[in-house]
Protein backbone atom coordinates (compact mmCIF):
# COMPACT_ATOMS: atom_id res chain seq x y z
CA UNK A 1 0.00 0.00 0.00
CA UNK A 2 2.71 2.45 0.95
CA UNK A 3 4.48 1.76 -2.34
CA UNK A 4 1.25 2.17 -4.28
CA UNK A 5 0.47 5.51 -2.82
CA UNK A 6 4.02 6.68 -2.75
CA UNK A 7 4.62 9.85 -0.93
CA UNK A 8 4.98 11.81 -4.17
CA UNK A 9 1.40 11.05 -5.15
CA UNK A 10 -0.19 11.98 -1.86
CA UNK A 11 2.10 14.95 -1.72
CA UNK A 12 1.30 16.30 -5.18
CA UNK A 13 -2.37 15.59 -4.50
CA UNK A 14 -2.44 17.47 -1.23
CA UNK A 15 -0.04 20.26 -2.21
CA UNK A 16 -0.17 20.72 -5.95
CA UNK A 17 2.34 23.20 -7.35
CA UNK A 18 0.57 23.90 -10.61
CA UNK A 19 -3.09 23.98 -9.77
CA UNK A 20 -4.82 26.98 -11.27
CA UNK A 21 -5.64 28.60 -14.55
CA UNK A 22 -3.53 30.88 -16.77
CA UNK A 23 -5.32 33.85 -18.23
CA UNK A 24 -4.56 34.73 -20.92
CA UNK A 25 -3.32 31.39 -22.32
CA UNK A 26 -2.34 30.01 -25.70
CA UNK A 27 -3.55 26.46 -25.24
CA UNK A 28 -6.60 25.24 -23.40
CA UNK A 29 -8.31 21.86 -23.19
CA UNK A 30 -10.50 19.96 -20.76
CA UNK A 31 -11.99 16.48 -20.59
CA UNK A 32 -13.32 14.04 -18.06
CA UNK A 33 -13.52 10.37 -17.27
CA UNK A 34 -17.25 9.85 -16.93
CA UNK A 35 -16.82 6.58 -15.07
CA UNK A 36 -15.44 8.14 -11.93
CA UNK A 37 -16.05 11.84 -12.37
CA UNK A 38 -12.38 12.77 -12.79
CA UNK A 39 -12.08 16.12 -14.54
CA UNK A 40 -8.94 17.88 -15.80
CA UNK A 41 -8.50 21.27 -17.46
CA UNK A 42 -5.12 22.45 -18.70
CA UNK A 43 -3.98 25.93 -19.74
CA UNK A 44 -0.55 26.67 -21.25
CA UNK A 45 1.40 29.71 -22.38
CA UNK A 46 3.82 29.20 -25.26
CA UNK A 47 6.85 31.38 -25.82
CA UNK A 48 8.25 32.64 -29.13
CA UNK A 49 10.44 29.53 -29.62
CA UNK A 50 7.47 27.17 -29.34
CA UNK A 51 8.36 26.19 -25.81
CA UNK A 52 6.02 25.88 -22.85
CA UNK A 53 6.51 29.10 -20.91
CA UNK A 54 4.08 28.24 -18.16
CA UNK A 55 1.24 25.84 -17.41
CA UNK A 56 -1.54 25.10 -14.94
CA UNK A 57 -4.13 22.37 -14.41
CA UNK A 58 -7.42 22.45 -12.63
CA UNK A 59 -9.95 19.76 -11.91
CA UNK A 60 -11.23 17.26 -9.45
CA UNK A 61 -10.97 13.56 -8.97
CA UNK A 62 -8.84 10.91 -7.39
CA UNK A 63 -5.32 11.38 -6.11
CA UNK A 64 -3.82 9.66 -9.10
CA UNK A 65 -5.53 11.84 -11.68
CA UNK A 66 -4.73 15.07 -9.82
CA UNK A 67 -1.19 14.17 -8.83
CA UNK A 68 -0.28 13.04 -12.31
CA UNK A 69 -1.62 16.30 -13.73
CA UNK A 70 0.60 18.25 -11.35
CA UNK A 71 3.64 16.10 -12.15
CA UNK A 72 2.93 16.40 -15.86
CA UNK A 73 2.77 20.20 -15.86
CA UNK A 74 5.93 20.35 -13.80
CA UNK A 75 7.71 18.17 -16.33
CA UNK A 76 6.79 20.16 -19.44
CA UNK A 77 7.56 23.69 -18.41
CA UNK A 78 10.42 24.92 -20.53
CA UNK A 79 10.07 22.04 -23.03
CA UNK A 80 9.44 22.54 -26.78
CA UNK A 81 5.92 21.55 -27.88
CA UNK A 82 7.44 18.98 -30.24
CA UNK A 83 8.82 17.19 -27.21
CA UNK A 84 5.52 17.44 -25.36
CA UNK A 85 3.81 15.72 -28.29
CA UNK A 86 6.12 12.76 -27.83
CA UNK A 87 5.20 12.11 -24.20
CA UNK A 88 3.89 8.59 -23.72
CA UNK A 89 1.99 6.48 -21.24
CA UNK A 90 5.31 5.19 -19.98
CA UNK A 91 6.53 8.68 -19.16
CA UNK A 92 3.57 9.20 -16.88
CA UNK A 93 4.05 5.83 -15.21
CA UNK A 94 7.69 6.64 -14.66
CA UNK A 95 6.78 9.92 -13.00
CA UNK A 96 4.25 8.23 -10.73
CA UNK A 97 6.61 5.38 -10.00
CA UNK A 98 3.82 2.85 -9.38
CA UNK A 99 2.11 0.01 -11.18
CA UNK A 100 -1.49 0.54 -12.20
CA UNK A 101 -4.32 -1.69 -13.34
CA UNK A 102 -6.42 -0.80 -16.39
CA UNK A 103 -9.03 1.21 -14.46
CA UNK A 104 -6.54 3.40 -12.58
CA UNK A 105 -4.45 3.79 -15.72
CA UNK A 106 -7.32 5.83 -17.16
CA UNK A 107 -7.12 8.15 -14.14
CA UNK A 108 -3.35 8.48 -14.52
CA UNK A 109 -3.50 9.21 -18.24
CA UNK A 110 -6.39 11.68 -18.24
CA UNK A 111 -4.09 14.71 -17.93
CA UNK A 112 -1.80 13.51 -20.72
CA UNK A 113 -4.82 12.98 -22.94
CA UNK A 114 -6.06 16.48 -22.23
CA UNK A 115 -2.59 17.94 -22.74
CA UNK A 116 -2.06 16.24 -26.08
CA UNK A 117 -5.52 17.07 -27.39
CA UNK A 118 -4.77 20.72 -26.54
CA UNK A 119 -1.30 20.75 -28.05
CA UNK A 120 -2.48 19.05 -31.24
CA UNK A 121 -5.46 21.42 -31.36
CA UNK A 122 -7.99 18.58 -31.61
CA UNK A 123 -11.72 18.94 -31.19
CA UNK A 124 -11.99 15.81 -29.09
CA UNK A 125 -9.64 13.84 -26.87
CA UNK A 126 -9.22 10.20 -27.78
CA UNK A 127 -7.69 7.25 -25.96
CA UNK A 128 -5.40 6.70 -28.92
CA UNK A 129 -3.41 9.79 -27.92
CA UNK A 130 -2.03 7.96 -24.91
CA UNK A 131 -1.53 4.43 -26.21
Amino acid sequence: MEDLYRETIIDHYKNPQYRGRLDPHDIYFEDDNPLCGDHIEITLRIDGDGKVADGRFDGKGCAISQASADLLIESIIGKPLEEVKKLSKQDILDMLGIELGPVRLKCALLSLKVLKAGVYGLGEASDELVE
Partner: protein
Amino acid sequence: MSLDLPRIRRDFPILSREIRPGVPLVYLDSTATTQKPLSVLQAMEDFYRRSNANIHRGVHTLAEEATALYEQARSKVARFINAPGAAQVIFTRNATESINLVAYTWGRANLAKGDLVILTEMEHHSNLVPWHMLAAERGVDLAFVPVTPDGLLDLDVYRSLLARAPKLAAFTHMSNVLGTINPVGEMTRLAHEAGALVLVDGAQSVPHLPVDVQALDVDFLAFSAHKMLGPTGIGALYGRKSLLEQMPPFLGGGDMIKTVHLTGFTPNSIPHKFEAGTSAIAEAVGFGAAVDYLAEIGMDAVAAHEQEIIAYALERLEEIPGLKVFGPPAEKKGGVAAFTLEGVHPHDVAQILDGSGVAVRAGHHCAQPLHEKFDIPATTRASFYLYSIKEEVDKLVEGLYQVKKLFG
Protein backbone atom coordinates in the same frame (compact mmCIF):
# COMPACT_ATOMS: atom_id res chain seq x y z
CA MET B 1 -30.23 -21.30 12.10
CA SER B 2 -26.89 -19.55 12.11
CA LEU B 3 -24.46 -20.67 9.43
CA ASP B 4 -21.51 -22.97 9.92
CA LEU B 5 -19.10 -20.38 8.54
CA PRO B 6 -15.80 -22.22 8.87
CA ARG B 7 -17.32 -25.08 6.86
CA ILE B 8 -18.85 -22.77 4.30
CA ARG B 9 -15.61 -20.87 3.83
CA ARG B 10 -13.73 -24.10 3.22
CA ASP B 11 -16.08 -24.75 0.28
CA PHE B 12 -14.74 -21.64 -1.46
CA PRO B 13 -11.11 -22.19 -2.43
CA ILE B 14 -10.50 -18.58 -3.45
CA LEU B 15 -11.22 -17.37 0.10
CA SER B 16 -7.92 -18.80 1.24
CA ARG B 17 -5.97 -17.00 -1.45
CA GLU B 18 -3.31 -14.47 -0.55
CA ILE B 19 -3.43 -11.35 -2.73
CA ARG B 20 0.25 -10.82 -2.12
CA PRO B 21 2.52 -12.91 0.07
CA GLY B 22 1.20 -12.59 3.60
CA VAL B 23 -1.87 -10.56 2.58
CA PRO B 24 -5.00 -12.73 2.59
CA LEU B 25 -7.96 -11.86 0.38
CA VAL B 26 -10.90 -10.13 2.08
CA TYR B 27 -13.53 -10.38 -0.62
CA LEU B 28 -16.19 -7.71 -0.14
CA ASP B 29 -17.43 -7.44 -3.72
CA SER B 30 -20.13 -10.10 -3.92
CA THR B 31 -22.69 -7.70 -5.34
CA ALA B 32 -20.53 -7.47 -8.47
CA THR B 33 -20.02 -11.21 -8.64
CA THR B 34 -19.86 -14.01 -6.09
CA GLN B 35 -17.25 -16.64 -5.48
CA LYS B 36 -17.97 -20.29 -6.39
CA PRO B 37 -18.08 -23.28 -4.10
CA LEU B 38 -16.24 -26.47 -5.01
CA SER B 39 -19.51 -28.26 -5.75
CA VAL B 40 -20.22 -25.85 -8.59
CA LEU B 41 -16.73 -26.18 -10.05
CA GLN B 42 -16.93 -29.94 -9.66
CA ALA B 43 -20.30 -30.19 -11.40
CA MET B 44 -18.97 -28.36 -14.45
CA GLU B 45 -15.69 -30.24 -14.50
CA ASP B 46 -17.57 -33.55 -14.28
CA PHE B 47 -19.83 -32.48 -17.08
CA TYR B 48 -16.88 -31.78 -19.37
CA ARG B 49 -15.00 -34.88 -18.33
CA ARG B 50 -17.90 -37.32 -18.58
CA SER B 51 -21.01 -36.08 -20.38
CA ASN B 52 -20.13 -33.21 -22.66
CA ALA B 53 -22.26 -33.24 -25.81
CA ASN B 54 -24.67 -30.99 -27.60
CA ILE B 55 -28.25 -31.30 -26.39
CA HIS B 56 -31.86 -31.73 -27.50
CA ARG B 57 -31.32 -33.43 -30.82
CA GLY B 58 -28.96 -36.23 -29.94
CA VAL B 59 -29.71 -39.92 -29.75
CA HIS B 60 -26.37 -41.08 -28.36
CA THR B 61 -25.71 -41.62 -24.65
CA LEU B 62 -23.66 -38.48 -24.07
CA ALA B 63 -26.24 -36.30 -25.79
CA GLU B 64 -28.97 -37.85 -23.67
CA GLU B 65 -27.01 -37.38 -20.47
CA ALA B 66 -26.21 -33.79 -21.38
CA THR B 67 -29.83 -33.04 -22.24
CA ALA B 68 -31.05 -34.57 -18.99
CA LEU B 69 -28.48 -32.61 -16.96
CA TYR B 70 -29.38 -29.37 -18.72
CA GLU B 71 -33.11 -29.82 -18.20
CA GLN B 72 -32.60 -30.93 -14.60
CA ALA B 73 -30.77 -27.68 -14.01
CA ARG B 74 -33.73 -25.80 -15.41
CA SER B 75 -36.04 -27.64 -13.01
CA LYS B 76 -33.78 -26.86 -10.07
CA VAL B 77 -33.74 -23.16 -10.89
CA ALA B 78 -37.51 -23.20 -11.39
CA ARG B 79 -38.03 -24.86 -8.02
CA PHE B 80 -35.67 -22.38 -6.37
CA ILE B 81 -37.98 -19.46 -7.27
CA ASN B 82 -41.11 -21.60 -6.97
CA ALA B 83 -42.04 -21.26 -10.64
CA PRO B 84 -45.15 -23.26 -11.50
CA GLY B 85 -43.30 -25.06 -14.30
CA ALA B 86 -39.76 -25.52 -15.55
CA ALA B 87 -40.80 -24.37 -19.03
CA GLN B 88 -41.23 -20.89 -17.57
CA VAL B 89 -37.52 -20.56 -16.90
CA ILE B 90 -35.53 -19.43 -19.91
CA PHE B 91 -31.76 -19.59 -19.78
CA THR B 92 -30.08 -16.37 -20.95
CA ARG B 93 -26.53 -15.04 -20.59
CA ASN B 94 -27.29 -12.85 -17.59
CA ALA B 95 -29.95 -10.68 -15.98
CA THR B 96 -29.17 -8.01 -18.54
CA GLU B 97 -30.07 -10.27 -21.45
CA SER B 98 -33.19 -11.42 -19.61
CA ILE B 99 -34.45 -7.84 -19.41
CA ASN B 100 -33.50 -7.14 -23.01
CA LEU B 101 -35.35 -10.26 -24.09
CA VAL B 102 -38.55 -8.86 -22.59
CA ALA B 103 -37.93 -5.41 -24.07
CA TYR B 104 -37.22 -6.82 -27.53
CA THR B 105 -40.07 -9.34 -27.67
CA TRP B 106 -42.90 -8.41 -25.33
CA GLY B 107 -41.93 -4.74 -25.56
CA ARG B 108 -41.83 -4.43 -29.31
CA ALA B 109 -45.03 -6.46 -29.68
CA ASN B 110 -46.99 -4.54 -27.06
CA LEU B 111 -45.65 -1.03 -26.64
CA ALA B 112 -46.40 1.80 -29.03
CA LYS B 113 -45.82 5.55 -29.11
CA GLY B 114 -47.10 7.23 -25.99
CA ASP B 115 -47.38 4.04 -23.93
CA LEU B 116 -45.94 4.42 -20.46
CA VAL B 117 -43.32 2.28 -18.73
CA ILE B 118 -42.61 2.98 -15.05
CA LEU B 119 -39.03 2.57 -13.84
CA THR B 120 -37.28 3.87 -10.74
CA GLU B 121 -34.32 6.12 -10.02
CA MET B 122 -32.47 3.28 -8.32
CA GLU B 123 -32.32 0.99 -11.34
CA HIS B 124 -29.16 -0.65 -12.56
CA HIS B 125 -28.26 0.35 -16.14
CA SER B 126 -29.52 -3.07 -17.20
CA ASN B 127 -33.04 -2.04 -16.33
CA LEU B 128 -32.71 1.42 -17.85
CA VAL B 129 -30.91 1.19 -21.17
CA PRO B 130 -33.17 -1.47 -22.77
CA TRP B 131 -36.10 0.88 -22.11
CA HIS B 132 -34.15 3.92 -23.31
CA MET B 133 -33.60 2.06 -26.56
CA LEU B 134 -37.30 1.29 -26.84
CA ALA B 135 -38.19 4.88 -26.00
CA ALA B 136 -35.88 6.18 -28.74
CA GLU B 137 -37.12 3.63 -31.28
CA ARG B 138 -40.84 3.66 -30.54
CA GLY B 139 -41.63 6.82 -28.66
CA VAL B 140 -42.53 4.88 -25.54
CA ASP B 141 -42.68 7.17 -22.48
CA LEU B 142 -40.63 6.45 -19.38
CA ALA B 143 -41.42 7.71 -15.90
CA PHE B 144 -39.29 7.24 -12.81
CA VAL B 145 -40.28 6.57 -9.23
CA PRO B 146 -38.04 8.89 -7.18
CA VAL B 147 -35.71 7.72 -4.44
CA THR B 148 -36.15 9.44 -1.08
CA PRO B 149 -33.10 10.86 0.75
CA ASP B 150 -33.02 7.77 2.98
CA GLY B 151 -32.88 5.52 -0.09
CA LEU B 152 -36.43 4.22 -0.36
CA LEU B 153 -38.82 4.38 -3.29
CA ASP B 154 -41.42 7.10 -3.03
CA LEU B 155 -44.52 4.94 -3.20
CA ASP B 156 -46.89 7.90 -3.33
CA VAL B 157 -45.38 8.92 -6.61
CA TYR B 158 -45.50 5.28 -7.71
CA ARG B 159 -49.25 5.25 -7.04
CA SER B 160 -49.78 8.46 -8.94
CA LEU B 161 -47.77 7.15 -11.89
CA LEU B 162 -49.91 4.00 -11.89
CA ALA B 163 -52.95 6.25 -12.32
CA ARG B 164 -51.56 7.15 -15.76
CA ALA B 165 -52.36 3.62 -17.04
CA PRO B 166 -48.83 2.33 -17.64
CA LYS B 167 -48.32 -0.87 -19.63
CA LEU B 168 -45.41 -2.05 -17.51
CA ALA B 169 -43.73 -1.36 -14.19
CA ALA B 170 -40.11 -2.56 -14.18
CA PHE B 171 -38.12 -2.21 -10.98
CA THR B 172 -35.42 -3.80 -8.95
CA HIS B 173 -36.16 -6.04 -6.00
CA MET B 174 -32.99 -4.94 -4.26
CA SER B 175 -30.76 -2.00 -5.10
CA ASN B 176 -27.12 -2.90 -5.79
CA VAL B 177 -26.01 0.41 -4.27
CA LEU B 178 -28.41 1.33 -1.50
CA GLY B 179 -29.22 -2.25 -0.60
CA THR B 180 -32.87 -1.23 -0.34
CA ILE B 181 -35.27 -4.15 -0.51
CA ASN B 182 -38.37 -2.92 -2.28
CA PRO B 183 -41.89 -4.12 -1.37
CA VAL B 184 -42.30 -6.14 -4.56
CA GLY B 185 -45.46 -7.96 -3.53
CA GLU B 186 -47.29 -4.75 -2.71
CA MET B 187 -45.93 -2.89 -5.74
CA THR B 188 -46.98 -5.76 -8.00
CA ARG B 189 -50.48 -5.85 -6.57
CA LEU B 190 -50.85 -2.12 -7.20
CA ALA B 191 -49.49 -2.41 -10.73
CA HIS B 192 -51.83 -5.27 -11.56
CA GLU B 193 -54.78 -3.29 -10.22
CA ALA B 194 -53.74 -0.51 -12.57
CA GLY B 195 -53.62 -2.98 -15.46
CA ALA B 196 -49.82 -2.97 -15.80
CA LEU B 197 -47.52 -5.95 -16.05
CA VAL B 198 -44.55 -6.22 -13.69
CA LEU B 199 -40.95 -7.04 -14.50
CA VAL B 200 -38.69 -7.45 -11.49
CA ASP B 201 -34.92 -7.19 -11.69
CA GLY B 202 -34.00 -9.95 -9.26
CA ALA B 203 -30.25 -9.82 -9.90
CA GLN B 204 -29.65 -8.92 -6.25
CA SER B 205 -32.69 -10.46 -4.57
CA VAL B 206 -32.71 -14.03 -5.88
CA PRO B 207 -29.15 -14.60 -4.57
CA HIS B 208 -29.83 -13.13 -1.13
CA LEU B 209 -33.49 -13.59 -0.17
CA PRO B 210 -36.17 -16.23 -0.45
CA VAL B 211 -37.98 -15.25 -3.69
CA ASP B 212 -41.26 -16.93 -4.62
CA VAL B 213 -42.62 -15.81 -7.99
CA GLN B 214 -46.06 -17.19 -7.25
CA ALA B 215 -46.36 -15.45 -3.90
CA LEU B 216 -45.07 -12.19 -5.35
CA ASP B 217 -47.23 -12.72 -8.44
CA VAL B 218 -44.70 -10.98 -10.72
CA ASP B 219 -44.94 -11.39 -14.48
CA PHE B 220 -41.21 -11.47 -15.24
CA LEU B 221 -38.15 -11.98 -13.05
CA ALA B 222 -34.57 -11.57 -14.29
CA PHE B 223 -31.46 -12.85 -12.54
CA SER B 224 -27.85 -14.00 -13.08
CA ALA B 225 -26.11 -17.20 -11.98
CA HIS B 226 -22.75 -15.53 -11.33
CA LYS B 227 -24.28 -13.45 -8.56
CA MET B 228 -25.55 -16.55 -6.74
CA LEU B 229 -22.53 -18.87 -6.59
CA GLY B 230 -22.95 -20.02 -10.18
CA PRO B 231 -20.75 -19.57 -13.24
CA THR B 232 -20.53 -16.59 -15.56
CA GLY B 233 -22.23 -16.91 -18.93
CA ILE B 234 -25.69 -17.88 -17.73
CA GLY B 235 -28.73 -16.18 -16.29
CA ALA B 236 -32.44 -16.73 -16.30
CA LEU B 237 -35.73 -15.13 -17.15
CA TYR B 238 -38.85 -16.35 -15.41
CA GLY B 239 -42.09 -15.43 -17.17
CA ARG B 240 -45.77 -16.03 -16.74
CA LYS B 241 -46.72 -18.92 -19.01
CA SER B 242 -49.42 -17.18 -21.01
CA LEU B 243 -47.11 -14.22 -21.69
CA LEU B 244 -44.16 -16.32 -22.76
CA GLU B 245 -46.39 -18.31 -25.06
CA GLN B 246 -47.71 -15.19 -26.77
CA MET B 247 -44.39 -13.39 -27.09
CA PRO B 248 -42.63 -13.52 -30.45
CA PRO B 249 -39.24 -15.23 -30.47
CA PHE B 250 -36.06 -13.25 -29.74
CA LEU B 251 -32.96 -14.65 -31.45
CA GLY B 252 -33.37 -16.94 -34.46
CA GLY B 253 -31.47 -20.17 -35.03
CA GLY B 254 -31.16 -23.77 -34.01
CA ASP B 255 -33.37 -25.18 -31.21
CA MET B 256 -35.79 -22.25 -31.11
CA ILE B 257 -37.65 -23.57 -34.14
CA LYS B 258 -40.13 -26.32 -34.78
CA THR B 259 -39.60 -26.36 -38.55
CA VAL B 260 -37.55 -24.30 -40.99
CA HIS B 261 -38.05 -23.99 -44.71
CA LEU B 262 -36.40 -21.66 -47.19
CA THR B 263 -39.53 -19.53 -47.02
CA GLY B 264 -39.87 -19.21 -43.25
CA PHE B 265 -40.01 -20.97 -39.91
CA THR B 266 -42.38 -21.95 -37.12
CA PRO B 267 -41.17 -21.30 -33.58
CA ASN B 268 -40.74 -24.00 -30.97
CA SER B 269 -42.74 -24.15 -27.74
CA ILE B 270 -41.45 -22.54 -24.51
CA PRO B 271 -38.80 -22.45 -23.14
CA HIS B 272 -36.95 -23.49 -26.30
CA LYS B 273 -38.51 -20.73 -28.38
CA PHE B 274 -36.23 -18.30 -26.57
CA GLU B 275 -33.03 -20.35 -26.56
CA ALA B 276 -31.41 -20.04 -29.97
CA GLY B 277 -28.26 -21.93 -30.83
CA THR B 278 -26.16 -24.04 -28.55
CA SER B 279 -26.99 -23.15 -24.95
CA ALA B 280 -24.60 -22.52 -22.10
CA ILE B 281 -24.85 -26.21 -21.22
CA ALA B 282 -22.03 -26.67 -18.74
CA GLU B 283 -22.97 -23.34 -17.19
CA ALA B 284 -26.55 -24.53 -16.67
CA VAL B 285 -25.18 -27.56 -14.87
CA GLY B 286 -23.11 -25.25 -12.68
CA PHE B 287 -26.14 -23.02 -12.08
CA GLY B 288 -28.09 -26.09 -10.94
CA ALA B 289 -25.31 -26.99 -8.50
CA ALA B 290 -25.32 -23.41 -7.19
CA VAL B 291 -29.02 -23.43 -6.38
CA ASP B 292 -28.57 -26.85 -4.78
CA TYR B 293 -25.94 -25.34 -2.52
CA LEU B 294 -28.13 -22.37 -1.62
CA ALA B 295 -31.25 -24.49 -1.14
CA GLU B 296 -29.41 -26.83 1.17
CA ILE B 297 -28.32 -23.96 3.40
CA GLY B 298 -31.73 -22.37 3.07
CA MET B 299 -32.42 -18.87 1.83
CA ASP B 300 -33.92 -17.83 5.16
CA ALA B 301 -30.62 -18.66 6.82
CA VAL B 302 -28.67 -16.84 4.11
CA ALA B 303 -30.80 -13.73 4.52
CA ALA B 304 -30.55 -13.87 8.31
CA HIS B 305 -26.76 -14.13 8.14
CA GLU B 306 -26.52 -11.16 5.82
CA GLN B 307 -28.78 -9.15 8.12
CA GLU B 308 -26.40 -9.81 10.95
CA ILE B 309 -23.35 -8.85 8.91
CA ILE B 310 -24.81 -5.66 7.46
CA ALA B 311 -26.07 -4.51 10.85
CA TYR B 312 -22.58 -4.99 12.26
CA ALA B 313 -20.96 -3.34 9.24
CA LEU B 314 -23.18 -0.26 9.41
CA GLU B 315 -22.48 0.10 13.11
CA ARG B 316 -18.73 -0.09 12.57
CA LEU B 317 -18.66 2.10 9.45
CA GLU B 318 -20.74 4.87 10.94
CA GLU B 319 -18.26 5.33 13.74
CA ILE B 320 -15.68 6.54 11.17
CA PRO B 321 -15.61 10.34 11.01
CA GLY B 322 -16.42 11.73 7.57
CA LEU B 323 -17.87 8.45 6.35
CA LYS B 324 -21.42 8.46 4.99
CA VAL B 325 -23.29 5.29 4.05
CA PHE B 326 -26.09 5.64 1.51
CA GLY B 327 -29.41 3.85 1.80
CA PRO B 328 -31.82 2.81 4.51
CA PRO B 329 -31.01 1.28 7.91
CA ALA B 330 -29.99 -2.36 8.16
CA GLU B 331 -33.52 -3.76 8.68
CA LYS B 332 -34.61 -2.48 5.30
CA LYS B 333 -31.63 -3.56 3.28
CA GLY B 334 -29.49 -6.41 2.12
CA GLY B 335 -25.76 -6.86 2.54
CA VAL B 336 -24.54 -3.79 0.66
CA ALA B 337 -22.86 -0.68 2.06
CA ALA B 338 -22.01 2.05 -0.44
CA PHE B 339 -20.33 5.02 1.13
CA THR B 340 -18.25 8.16 0.66
CA LEU B 341 -15.31 9.20 2.80
CA GLU B 342 -14.81 12.92 3.01
CA GLY B 343 -11.84 14.24 1.09
CA VAL B 344 -10.86 10.93 -0.50
CA HIS B 345 -11.99 9.78 -3.91
CA PRO B 346 -13.63 6.32 -3.91
CA HIS B 347 -11.01 5.05 -6.37
CA ASP B 348 -8.28 5.94 -3.93
CA VAL B 349 -10.19 4.34 -1.08
CA ALA B 350 -10.59 1.11 -3.04
CA GLN B 351 -7.01 1.05 -4.16
CA ILE B 352 -5.59 1.64 -0.74
CA LEU B 353 -7.89 -1.01 0.73
CA ASP B 354 -6.65 -3.39 -1.94
CA GLY B 355 -3.20 -2.86 -0.52
CA SER B 356 -4.36 -4.68 2.61
CA GLY B 357 -6.19 -7.37 0.60
CA VAL B 358 -9.65 -5.86 1.02
CA ALA B 359 -11.52 -6.08 -2.30
CA VAL B 360 -14.26 -3.45 -2.61
CA ARG B 361 -15.66 -1.72 -5.68
CA ALA B 362 -15.51 1.99 -6.47
CA GLY B 363 -17.51 3.83 -9.10
CA HIS B 364 -21.14 4.33 -9.97
CA HIS B 365 -21.83 0.57 -9.89
CA CYS B 366 -23.85 0.80 -13.11
CA ALA B 367 -26.32 3.09 -11.36
CA GLN B 368 -25.18 6.46 -12.61
CA PRO B 369 -28.60 8.17 -12.35
CA LEU B 370 -28.83 7.18 -8.70
CA HIS B 371 -25.42 8.72 -8.05
CA GLU B 372 -26.50 11.86 -9.90
CA LYS B 373 -29.54 11.98 -7.66
CA PHE B 374 -27.30 12.02 -4.62
CA ASP B 375 -24.97 14.41 -6.44
CA ILE B 376 -21.85 12.29 -6.13
CA PRO B 377 -19.75 10.92 -8.98
CA ALA B 378 -18.98 7.64 -7.26
CA THR B 379 -19.10 5.62 -4.06
CA THR B 380 -17.01 2.90 -2.52
CA ARG B 381 -19.07 -0.24 -2.02
CA ALA B 382 -18.50 -3.15 0.34
CA SER B 383 -20.88 -6.07 -0.12
CA PHE B 384 -21.41 -9.34 1.68
CA TYR B 385 -22.64 -12.87 1.11
CA LEU B 386 -23.17 -16.08 2.98
CA TYR B 387 -19.41 -16.60 3.31
CA SER B 388 -18.72 -13.13 4.76
CA ILE B 389 -17.62 -12.85 8.38
CA LYS B 390 -17.36 -10.06 10.94
CA GLU B 391 -13.57 -10.27 10.93
CA GLU B 392 -13.73 -9.11 7.32
CA VAL B 393 -15.78 -6.10 8.32
CA ASP B 394 -13.11 -5.34 10.92
CA LYS B 395 -10.38 -5.47 8.28
CA LEU B 396 -12.39 -3.10 6.13
CA VAL B 397 -12.76 -0.63 8.98
CA GLU B 398 -9.08 -0.90 9.86
CA GLY B 399 -8.21 -0.23 6.24
CA LEU B 400 -10.45 2.81 6.17
CA TYR B 401 -8.67 4.28 9.16
CA GLN B 402 -5.40 3.84 7.30
CA VAL B 403 -6.87 5.65 4.31
CA LYS B 404 -7.82 8.51 6.55
CA LYS B 405 -4.35 8.60 8.01
CA LEU B 406 -2.69 8.74 4.60
CA PHE B 407 -4.95 11.49 3.34
CA GLY B 408 -5.41 13.13 6.71
